[in-house]
């Protein structure tokens, strides 16, 4: 497995948050609030994002070219920023899916060996 497909255990929480956001955006354009809400709803409340921590992650992903933020006018006075996945982000999300699968396979191998 090459480095791009490896989940770095020292940055587990960051990788997890980034990849969950990318996974939600695979379904289409979302605002920051919608992202957090959808993640919570789809995981039955298991993944509960502190909305405050969402922005650094979104802005980092935007800087890395994984997602694209676009400002749109909603009504006469309101402007909103919504995010979509870029091609690079789509490819990265696919790679990460494999990396997480591999991560948990190895994780459970060790856990189950220990419990056996």
């Amino acid at each position: 497995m090459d480095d791009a497909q490896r989940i770095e255990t020292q940055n587990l929480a960051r990788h997890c948050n980034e990849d969950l956001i990318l996974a939600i955006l695979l379904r289409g354009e979302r605002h920051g609030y919608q992202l957090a809400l959808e993640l919570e709803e789809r995981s039955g409340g298991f993944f509960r994002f502190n909305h405050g921590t969402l922005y650094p992650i979104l802005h980092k992903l935007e800087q890395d070219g994984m997602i694209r933020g676009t400002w749109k006018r909603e009504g006469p006075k309101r402007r909103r920023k919504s995010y979509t996945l870029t091609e690079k982000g789509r490819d990265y999300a696919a790679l990460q899916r494999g990396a997480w699968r591999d991560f948990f396979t190895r994780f459970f191998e060790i856990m189950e060996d220990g419990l056996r």
Partner: protein
Amino acid sequence: MNRFRGTLSRVSRKLDLPQPKKSRILLELSGDLNDAFDACLEQGMDEAEARRRVEAMFDLSDEAIDELVRVHDTALRKLLGAMSIEARTRWERALLVVLLAFIALAAGRPILSLGPFALAGPFVWPVAGFSLVALTAAIAQAYRLHIRRVYDTRRLRDGPAWILAAAAGCLASGFTGSTVEMSRAARVIAAGAERPLAAFIDGALAASAVMVVALLAGVLWAVVWSVLEHSAGRIAEAEVAWLYEE
């Protein structure tokens, strides 16, 4: 008025980023806060309860704000941030001194050798004094707005008033100097000068020279004041834009 003004003001104070990045982040946050508020109202909460709930949901901790600053910081600001405050202040002061010395050396001698400056007589010194005050105020304001980038909307326009006052001082010195030079020539002629026309021309030359120097300085500082005022105005506008959801 934005109903989450308190939350946004708190974040704004801590978010040490230049405009327009800061306003964009606050605008994005403001949109999400209002969306969450509307969702809470739809769930049947009253306004006070919805606001409390949303503020708890969007509690931007100091760590989250620091992380946002880190994400958006430029390479130069990251380098400055890595230095201690004392070291940074020392470097910034040293750079300003070098800049001032360079300006004084490069521009001082050629300007002083120009005709009007050579003819202006002692009244060029008050003009130079006022110009020094204006230069100091202009550098301090430019440093605050464009290098340090710590924006306090209540104090954004504190510095430029000194520049305008110094520009007025230059003009007043020029007018006084011009009047003194002309009255001196008049006294010489009245005392029975051998060549009254030459005395009058000498007086008029000195008076116009001091007036030209004062006008040049006055106009220059007025332009600098106007540029810095415009700059401060733009920053102040961007700072409060999110309040009106522009």
